[in-house]
C-alpha cells in the first residue's frame, strides 16, 4: 500500500508535468475554475485550441488506439494526465461527452467506415459530439423514448421526429449519438435504435435551457423530419438499449469522480479563524473532510484497480451520492459562514462566496444528472447488494400500449 507512482508512471508524470508547465499557467488556488467570466464562444474556442495542442503533443487521446491518432497508452496514464492537468488553469470538461461517452461507444460498436470517418476528428477536437438521449418524458426512465425514427421505404433513410433535453454542447457539436424508437409495437426496451446524426442537417433546432441558477449549460434539441441514412445506425436496428446502458456507465463514473484532491483545504480557508475558535464550525469542517477526502481516497482505490488493469470495484458507484451530499453541504456551509450577509449574491462579496453559490446550484445538478440519487440507490441495491428489482408493471407490453 502506497500513494507513489510506480517507476514507469513516475516517469510519465514527470513528462506530463514538464509539458504542462511549458504550455499552461498553474492555478493560483485549487478551486480556481478556468474561464468563468469569459463568453461561451470564447471558452469553446479556447477549449478546441487546448485539445488540439494536447493532441499534437500526444496527450489529447492518451488511451485511444494509435490507429486513429491516439497515443495507445494505458487508462492509468490518462488518469495521471487528468490529475496533473487539474493543477493548471486550462479549459477542461468540454470534451467529456465527446471523448468520454460518444467515441468509446463508436469504437466499441460502429462500423469500420464510421470509425475511419469520425474518430480522428473527434480526438483532435475539431469535431465535437453530443448525446441526444434524454427526453422530457424519458429521464430516470430512459427507455421511455418518444422520439420516432420511421423508415422511408423508398430512400432507405430514417425520418426522425421528436424532442431531446439536457444536451450538453449541442450548439457546438458537429455530430450526435441519438436514440429513437424504431418499433413501438415491441416492448419498451426492444424497439430503440441508436443513430449517428449530423447536427448541421435541416430540421434540427437547438435551444438553451435556462437552469435554476439562471445559467444555461444545457440545451433542448427539436428534431423535425430529420433525414438520416440507414448506414448511420450503430449496432442493430431495434438493438439500441445495450448501447445506452454501456454509455450510462461511462457517464456516471465521470460525474461522480471529478473532485480535486485538497478540497477540504478550501473548507478550512473559508472557515478562516472560526476553524480555530468555533467548535460548531470545526465539526462541520471535519464532516466535510470525511466526504471530500473520502471521495479522493475512493478514486485512489478505483485508480489502483485501473493501474492493475482491473475494473474499479462496485463501491465507486457510491461516489456520486457522496459527491452530491458533499457539494450541497459545502455550499450551505460557505453561505452560513456569512451569517445575515449570506443573502448577498456572491458577486457582491468575493471569490469564495461565488464558489459556494455555484456549488449551491451545481450540487443540484450532481444529484439529478446521469441518474438521480434515488436511481443510483436502486442500482446499488440491485446490482451490488443483490436485492430484488422493483416489480415492473411495464414488462413485455408493447410500448404503444403503455399508460403515459
Amino acid at each position, binding site marked *: 500500500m502506497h500513494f507513489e507512482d510506480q517507476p514507469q508512471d513516475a516517469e510519465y508524470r514527470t513528462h506530463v508535468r514538464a509539458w504542462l508547465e511549458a504550455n499552461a499557467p498553474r492555478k493560483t488556488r485549487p478551486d480556481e475554475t478556468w474561464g468563468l467570466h469569459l463568453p461561451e464562444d470564447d471558452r469553446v474556442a479556447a477549449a478546441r485550441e487546448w485539445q488540439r495542442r494536447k493532441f499534437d503533443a500526444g496527450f489529447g487521446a492518451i488511451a485511444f488506439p494509435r490507429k486513429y491518432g491516439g497515443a495507445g497508452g494505458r487508462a492509468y496514464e490518462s488518469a495521471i494526465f487528468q490529475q496533473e492537468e487539474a493543477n493548471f488553469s486550462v479549459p477542461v470538461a468540454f470534451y467529456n461527452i465527446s471523448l468520454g461517452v460518444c467515441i468509446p461507444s463508436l469504437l466499441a460498436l460502429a462500423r469500420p467506415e464510421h470509425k475511419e470517418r469520425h474518430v480522428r476528428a473527434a480526438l483532435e477536437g475539431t469535431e465535437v459530439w453530443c448525446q441526444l438521449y*434524454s427526453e*422530457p*418524458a424519458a*429521464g*430516470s*426512465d430512459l427507455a*421511455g423514448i418518444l422520439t420516432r425514427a420511421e423508415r422511408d421505404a423508398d430512400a432507405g433513410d430514417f425520418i426522425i421526429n421528436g424532442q431531446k*433535453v*439536457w444536451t450538453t454542447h449541442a450548439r457546438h457539436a458537429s455530430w450526435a449519438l441519438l436514440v429513437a424508437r424504431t418499433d413501438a409495437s415491441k416492448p419498451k426496451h426492444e424497439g430503440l435504435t441508436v443513430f449517428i446524426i449530423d447536427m448541421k442537417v435541416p430540421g434540427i433546432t437547438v435551444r438553451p*435551457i*435556462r*437552469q*435554476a*441558477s*439562471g445559467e444555461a449549460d444545457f440545451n433542448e434539441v427539436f428534431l423535425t423530419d430529420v433525414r438520416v441514412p440507414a448506414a448511420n445506425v450503430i449496432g442493430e436496428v431495434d438493438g439500441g438499449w445495450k448501447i445506452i446502458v454501456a454509455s450510462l456507465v461511462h457517464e456516471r463514473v465521470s460525474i461522480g469522480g471529478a473532485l480535486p484532491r485538497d478540497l477540504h483545504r478550501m473548507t478550512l480557508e473559508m472557515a478562516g479563524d472560526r476553524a480555530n475558535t468555533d467548535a*460548531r*464550525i470545526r465539526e462541520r469542517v471535519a464532516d466535510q473532510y470525511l466526504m471530500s477526502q473520502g471521495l479522493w481516497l475512493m478514486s485512489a482505490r478505483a485508480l489502483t484497480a485501473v493501474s492493475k488493469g482491473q475494473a474499479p470495484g462496485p463501491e465507486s458507484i457510491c461516489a456520486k451520492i457522496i459527491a452530491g451530499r458533499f457539494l*450541497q453541504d459545502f455550499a*450551505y456551509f460557505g*453561505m*452560513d459562514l*456569512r*451569517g*445575515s*450577509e*449570506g*443573502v*448577498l*449574491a456572491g*458577486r*457582491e462579496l468575493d471569490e469564495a462566496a461565488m464558489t459556494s*453559490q455555484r456549488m*449551491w446550484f451545481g450540487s*443540484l*445538478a450532481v*444529484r*439529478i*444528472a446521469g441518474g*438521480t*440519487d*434515488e436511481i443510483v*440507490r436502486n442500482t446499488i441495491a440491485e446490482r451490488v447488494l443483490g436485492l430484488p428489482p*422493483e416489480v*415492473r*408493471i*411495464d414488462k413485455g407490453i408493447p410500448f404503444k400500449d*403503455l*399508460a*403515459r
Partner: protein
Amino acid sequence: MDFDFSDEQKMFREEVRKALARACPVVEVRKVLEGQGPWAAPAWDALVEQGVTAADVAEEHGGLGLSVLELAVAAEEVGYALAPTPLFTSIGLALEVVRRAGSPAQQAAWLPALAQGAATATVALGLHGVLPCLAANGTAEGELTAVPDGLSAEAVFFRALAADGQVHWCRVTANSAGCERRAQDSIDPTRPLAGVKLRQASVEVLAGGADAATVLQGVLHRGAVLLAFEQLGGAARALEDARKYVLDRRAFGKQVGAYQAMKHKLVDIYTAVELARVHVYYSAWALQTNAPELPVAAAGARVAASQAYTLAAQEGLQAHGGFGFTWAADCHLHYRRARWTALILGNVHDWREKLVSGLVATA
C-alpha cells in the same frame, strides 16, 4: 387549553389566501424575479386592502387594533404565495422599531403611514460589522449592507454609535442628501437588497428613550416569529408542489409518487413541516402574550422553520428530477427563498445558540 387560532383568525387567513391567490399568481412573483419592480404591487395592495398591514397596530395610530396573531397567519399566506412584498421589512421590522424606540410624536407621525401601506420602511439590522457613527450635529456617517427592501423603502432605520459610546436608533429618509443607495444582488431576487452609504446624512434619532439593545432584541423576536410564519407557508407550498408533481409524473409505468423512496421523502418533509408548525404557532402565542418563554419560543420557531423550509425546498426540487433544475419550474423560487429566509436574521447556529441561552436562563 386552546392551542389553535380562533375561527375569526382562520377566516382572516382564508381571506388573505384567496386575495393572494388572485393578486399574486406565480407570474407576478417571476416579474420581481426578473427585476421588474421591487415587489409584486398587486400582492402588496391586496395585503393593505385586507387590513394585514394595519392588523396589530393600535387604533389611535390608524390600525385595526387586532393582535399579532392575525399578522402572523397572513405572513404564513405570504410565504405560501411566495409573494414578494415589504410586509416583513416594513410591518415586521420597521414598525416595531418605531413602536419600541420612537417617541409618542414619532409614533404618531410614522405609524399611520406604515399601517396603511402608504409608505414603507426597512431596518438595517447591522448584525455584522461596525455601526455608523452619529455626529453631534445629527448627521450619520457609515455603511449599511444587505438591507432588505433597502432600495424601495422610503425610510431606513438603523443603529448608530454616538461619540459618547451610546447607541441610538436612527431614521434616514431614502432620498435625502448624504444617503446614497445602490441595489445589491440577492440570492433571492424576489427579496431585493440594497447597500446604503451615509455621508453626513441628516438623520432623525428615535427619542422614545428605550435602550437600543433591548429594542433590537424585541425587533429580532418579532422578526423571527413573522419570518418563521413565512417559512412555514413556503415549506407547505413546496411540499404541495412536489406532491402534485409526483402524482402527475410517471416513470417505469407508475406514478413517481407511487415509489416508496418518493413517498417517504415527502413524508419526511411533511413531518419536518408539522414539527415546525407547532413551534411557529407557539412562538406567536409567546409573542402575543409577551411570555417569558418568548426568547426560546422565537428561536425554536426560527430554527425549526428554517430547517423545514430548507428540507422542503431542497428535497422538493429533487423530487421534480431534471425539471426541478430548470428556471421554468418554481422549485428554485423556494430553494432561493428558503436560504434567504434562513440567513437574513442570522444563521441556524446563531439561533440555536439563542435557544439554548434562553433554556439555560430559565432552567
